């Protein structure tokens, strides 16, 4: 029973190109807005990279509702735009590494039927932090980042849980 439901959920009807373009536009705008809102929230912990990952909400909904390629496109547009608007080149690099790894992991787990949206989101958030940390370790040539890795794994799991529950509720409610 449980195994059947996600399958039904996933039987995506092919979305016409024009509507898909419109969806991608709207999703990108939403992701950009969430990125901006997130940048207004002060950082609570003195560890770089700890954050809620609000924009990932859009990526997850897009992954489940539109497919992996539109989700990748939306992520890419969001990162480039928010990097240019609110950040710099280094930020774009960090975000790209995190988002790429995160999306690959989420895509893989989504196909693995035992995980639901929440698990996909948790794994995605942890992968996102791992990707960013890998870039930081490379740029700063710092091997001793064990402490950061642990903190970022925990913060990623918690934020992934929250975002996943939220994304799941949205995915159940919207019709595309």
């Amino acid at each position: 029973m449980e195994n059947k439901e996600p399958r039904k959920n996933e039987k995506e009807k092919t979305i016409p190109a024009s509507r898909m373009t419109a969806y991608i536009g709207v999703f990108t705008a939403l992701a950009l807005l969430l990125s901006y809102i997130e940048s207004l929230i002060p950082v609570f912990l003195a560890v770089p990279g700890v954050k809620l990952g609000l924009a990932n909400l859009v990526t997850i909904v897009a992954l489940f509702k539109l497919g992996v390629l539109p989700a990748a496109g939306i992520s890419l547009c969001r990162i480039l735009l928010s990097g240019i608007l609110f950040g710099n080149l280094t930020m774009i690099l960090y975000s790209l590494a995190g988002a790429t790894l995160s999306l690959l992991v989420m895509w893989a787990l989504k196909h693995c039927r035992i995980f639901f949206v929440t698990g996909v989101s948790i794994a995605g958030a942890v992968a996102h932090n791992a990707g960013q940390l890998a870039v930081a370790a490379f740029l700063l040539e710092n091997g001793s980042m064990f402490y950061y890795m642990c903190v970022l794994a925990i913060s990623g799991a918690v934020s992934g849980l929250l975002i996943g529950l939220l994304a799941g509720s949205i995915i159940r409610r919207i019709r595309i």
Partner: protein
Amino acid sequence: MCEQRENVNRTRLVSRADLILLAVVLLLAGAALVFYETHKEQGKLVRIRVGSETVEVLPLGKDRTYEVKTGEGSNTVVIKSGTVSVESADCPDKICVRHKPVDSVGETIICLPHKLVVEVVE
């Protein structure tokens, strides 16, 4: 159509695998943190790097203030009673300033915007 929507609405948000994944990540990272905290070793030197370049190595035993100026901005590193911290900086996020003082081997304070790494070594 209607029936399908009802089905979708009944889909549970969290599977057992999701919970196991969450527990495994929290337990592993938590255990690693506890191990890390209990196996700390008091450091003797502070290495200050910008990118891959070491700009200064200072003894942790001697109190002093050191200003690091990079192309991106400046950070004020303070060594006080065996611990090192970043007292002030003109970076946008101020994460380095809020970081707790460090004193154990391998601990670092990182200022990402300035590519600055303050690292405690033996």
